Every structure is written in structure tokens, then in C-alpha cells.
């Protein structure tokens, strides 16, 4: 067995970007449905902080924004011959808050940004809703002093590209993905789980650790026949 660790590129990207995308309605706010399902309006793919899951309330039961994380890894060096045994996405938490009191959790999903080396606002709705890890990390368990680990499930392993770029995303699971509107409590307050992105550097940047093997043939020698 072999193990390889992959990272998104820091800015300027060469093969794989990380950052976040958002639907931002401004302080006036918009309905939950429009915030969640609308097209993206903002993005950021440089800087140290990845706004991996952010829900912000506006006034009068409306919402300012939802943010989602995008994480790409150039896993092409695995090669088509690799058989992936396991993979773990590790994200170093940088901050969290729960002013909405809704205990947001976070999980891994597929993403499909238009470009591998830069984000754009339209990438907001490219994130999937099928979890690539069986166990979301709860708000309480989200560490801001070490890496948070997502062990990828079979869907997640299948999402790994052995010849190209693996495209993952982070979303709040229990409200954004589940499409459950949080209970509005007050205007302009937020619940979020933040992390460091690749620009933060060694020891903090997101990483995808893949355990794999490549198989040689197995042959058996049989008795000779037709011996004269």
C-alpha cells in the first residue's frame, strides 16, 4: 500500500483552487429559498480563510447569505492503475460561531467549478447534496485548533479522479443541504464554521490523504505437459 497527500494550490493556482462561493442578498435579505437555490453572487479564492459553511440572517425572517467551500486537489499522479483503499479530507478549522443557536454541522460534497484554477460566483450552485462522508462534523466537534477529518465513504472514493483533479466542496449539512430553514432569531447574526485555505501555508492548508495500491499480476506455474 502507498499513501499520497494532496493539497490545493495557494494563490496563484497552477492546477487546483480552493476558496468559497456565496449567494449574498445584502442586509435587506431574501427568502431562504432564494438564498439557498439562487445563483451565486460572490466568490473568493485567495486569502487565508475558507468560509466553508456560513448562514447569516437579515431582518424580518429573511437571510443575508449562505456560503459554501470549494476544494480541488490535483490527484492525477495516482494514475489509472491505482486502486483506492481509503481517503480522508482534513480541514484545519480557523473559527466558528453560532449566533443563530442552530448548531450547524458540516460535510463534504462534490463540486464542479467551471475552472480548476479560479472560482467564479456561478460555482455556488455546482455543489452537490450527496454526502461524500457518512458522518458530518457537528458544530460542537468542529475544532479550531487542529485538523477536522472527513473519512470519505464509497461515493467519496468514487469521486476521486485518478487521472485528473478531484473536486470537493463543503456545505452546512443540516440546514443548507437539508433545505431546512433555521429558526430566525435576530437580524444580521451568523452561524458559521470557518477553516484555513491553502494560502495559510504548511501545517494549516486543506489536505486529501489517499491510501491506495497498484497491483501486479498473480500467476501460477502449472506442471509441464507433452514432455518427450
Amino acid at each position, binding site marked *: 500500500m502507498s499513501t499520497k497527500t494532496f493539497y490545493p494550490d495557494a494563490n496563484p493556482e497552477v492546477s487546483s483552487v480552493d476558496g468559497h462561493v456565496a449567494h449574498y442578498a445584502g442586509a435587506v435579505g431574501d427568502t431562504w429559498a432564494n438564498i439557498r437555490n439562487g445563483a451565486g453572487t460572490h466568490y473568493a479564492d485567495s486569502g487565508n480563510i475558507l468560509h466553508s459553511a456560513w448562514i447569516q440572517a437579515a431582518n424580518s425572517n429573511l437571510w443575508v447569505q449562505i456560503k459554501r467551500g470549494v476544494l480541488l486537489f490535483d490527484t492525477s499522479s495516482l494514475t489509472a*492503475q491505482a486502486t483506492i483503499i481509503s481517503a480522508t479530507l482534513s480541514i484545519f478549522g480557523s473559527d466558528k460561531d453560532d449566533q443563530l443557536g442552530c448548531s450547524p454541522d458540516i460535510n463534504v460534497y462534490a463540486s464542479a467549478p467551471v475552472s480548476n484554477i479560479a472560482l467564479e460566483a456561478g460555482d455556488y450552485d455546482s455543489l452537490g447534496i450527496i454526502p461524500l462522508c457518512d458522518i458530518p462534523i457537528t458544530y460542537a466537534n468542529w475544532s479550531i485548533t487542529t485538523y477536522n477529518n472527513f473519512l470519505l465513504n464509497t461515493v467519496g472514493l468514487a469521486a476521486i479522479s485518478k487521472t485528473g483533479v478531484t473536486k470537493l466542496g463543503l456545505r452546512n449539512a443540516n440546514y443548507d443541504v437539508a433545505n431546512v430553514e433555521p429558526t430566525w432569531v435576530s437580524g444580521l447574526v451568523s452561524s458559521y464554521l470557518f477553516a484555513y485555505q491553502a494560502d495559510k501555508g504548511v501545517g494549516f492548508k486543506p489536505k486529501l490523504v489517499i491510501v491506495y495500491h497498484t497491483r501486479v499480476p498473480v500467476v501460477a*506455474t502449472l506442471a509441464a505437459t507433452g514432455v518427450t
Partner: protein
Amino acid sequence: MAQATLNGFLDDDGGLPTEAMFEWGMTNDYGMKTPWQPATIGVQFSATIMNLCPGQAYHFRAVGRNANGDSYGADMTFSTLGELGLPTLVDEFDILRLIGAIE
């Protein structure tokens, strides 16, 4: 001349196109090889070697390869029929050598 058919079996191709051949010789250092041939998982592969010495023990083993590398089957032996040490006549030049007509 003695001959034998060497046999092998591909248990696992590693998920990749695979070829097989045999190494053979009078010791388990082998020294001789049959040509590579395509191999299919779960299917026997064979190669016939000829012009063997009579009454001689031979070693051989199956070899498989794919893009990830080579692998080897166990060493096996067989012995050709006949009496060890008797020359084998194959053509008129061997006969001429025996009677000293040519070097």
C-alpha cells in the same frame, strides 16, 4: 529432439492488460525465455519449448507483467525422456560433426 509444453495460469491481472511468458533452463537461474503472450485472467497459458537435451532436468516458472510490474510463479521442474549425455542428431551437420567431417 525433446520438447515440453510449459503451462501457467493467470489468477489476477491487477485490473490491467497483462502478458505472460516462461523463464526456463537447466537450473533455477533459468537463462531462457519464451516470448511474451497476452494473458487472460482465469485462463491457462502455455508455450512449447523444443530442442531440449534428452534425460535432462529443467526448471521453469511462469512470469506475468502489467503496467505496475512483473510477478513470478513458483519454480517447477520436469525431465525429458531418454538417456542423459547421448548426443541428439538433428540434421546432417550434426552427423558430419560426429564423424569429424567438419569442425
